[in-house]
């Protein structure tokens, strides 16, 4: 099999399993919506500054949801020895990394679409601008590259729920800063000002995608 067909096989299998069980995405969705709900009570999401608070709430929801999803996805994979099976097959480790990353991107994007819709309806924010969607896409990509790498590391650790955030949060600071700033600017219509933040997000995603693919082999060795 070529690397491309291996990659497609991995993504298809993750999507198919999730389509049958639907437990991962539902869990993530509930988490995201509840986070947004709580933020409404924690901060003023209805006033004139709601673009800033709204984008902050959105990104906190995305970060927590992504880490939750990653943790559960690796746990599900370890059941029935599926992960060992994958490692025993002649697939290059970077291909596994990219496959897992893309599957997770599908799941997180599905959740984000609903979260954005909720944000738009409940808090009257113009989230369906292309600029906002680009920022959300870039930020999610950066988060998921880091997350996929460290989720694989923490897969067999008992305290994964604590360890995965402890590892990813500090490293993901540029993504959070950039994504929140850029989303706020885009929501307020200042697309030009958001450009440097978008470059930061894009550069981050590319850099850690490469680094993740390179180092995944050291992580996925059982």
């Amino acid at each position, binding site marked *: 099999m070529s690397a491309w067909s291996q990659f497609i096989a991995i993504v298809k299998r993750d999507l198919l399993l999730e389509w049958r069980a639907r437990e991962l995405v539902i869990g993530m969705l509930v988490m995201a919506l509840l986070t947004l709900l709580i933020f409404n009570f924690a901060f003023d999401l209805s006033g004139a500054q709601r673009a800033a608070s709204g984008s902050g709430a959105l990104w906190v929801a995305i970060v927590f949801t992504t880490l939750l999803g990653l943790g559960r996805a690796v746990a599900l994979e370890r059941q029935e020895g599926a992960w060992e099976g994958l490692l025993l097959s002649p697939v290059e480790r970077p291909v596994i990394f990219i496959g897992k990353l893309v599957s997770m991107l599908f799941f997180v994007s599905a959740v984000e679409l609903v979260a954005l819709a909720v944000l738009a309806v409940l808090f009257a924010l113009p989230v369906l601008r292309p600029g906002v969607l680009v920022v959300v896409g870039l930020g999610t990509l950066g988060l998921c590259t880091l997350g996929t790498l460290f989720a694989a590391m923490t897969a067999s650790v008992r305290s994964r729920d604590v360890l995965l955030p402890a*590892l990813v949060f500090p490293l993901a600071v540029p993504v959070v800063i950039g994504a929140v700033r850029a989303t706020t600017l885009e929501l307020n219509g200042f697309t030009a000002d958001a450009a440097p933040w978008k470059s930061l997000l894009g550069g981050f995603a590319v850099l850690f995608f490469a680094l993740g693919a390179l180092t995944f082999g050291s*992580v996925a*060795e059982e």
Partner: protein
Amino acid sequence: MATVTSAVRRPAKAAWLSVLATLSVLSFALSVVLIFLYAPRDVQQGEVQRLFYLHLPTAWLAYLSFFIIFVSSILYLLRGQARWDRLARSAAELGFIFTTLVLLTGSIWGRPIWGTWWTWDARLTTTLILWFIYLGYFLLRAYVADPERGARYAAVLGIVGFVDIPIIHMSVRWWRTMHPEPIVVRSEGPAMPPEMFTTVAIALIAFVILYAFLLAVKYWIETTRDEVMEIRGALEQHG
């Protein structure tokens, strides 16, 4: 068994360890004299400014440690030799301590000068995040059961973390800034009286010698620990 005797043998390079220790004590003694008697009193900040001679070297060492972790991690992943992981572990412990010291000395110095214990400017925030990355490094090593796997994972974290630090710094600086502009490393020369520059240079050298000594001792302790683990493993195997 050869491994038993090697574990209790004094380090092969004990002589230069003693030299480092002596140099360290002497240079620190010199630094203390310079800091309190030679360096002038800062006109605006008063005596508390002397914390600078502690603060700057610990900051450099906190970041130097992470660089050592970065290089050792790459070498460990490429070559798989235990010595690189030992070096990374040792540098991590020292780096964590020095990062804590930077944050503490900076905070103590900042309180009377800035009127606040903390501010979210670029350099403080990045150093705080560095502290958390170090913490994550230790948590990872502690929670992963198999030590060899823990070493590999920690190496990946060391590499990813080091590459991320400049990006973190850049993003936080774009976000806000309040730290005094760098006064030591500037193209037109440091913006402070020569006595202060001499003092901080000597203090920096003293700290670097101390760091080298501590790193060497810590590395030796880790080597011994690994040998003990090996012996213990062999004993368990053969009953």
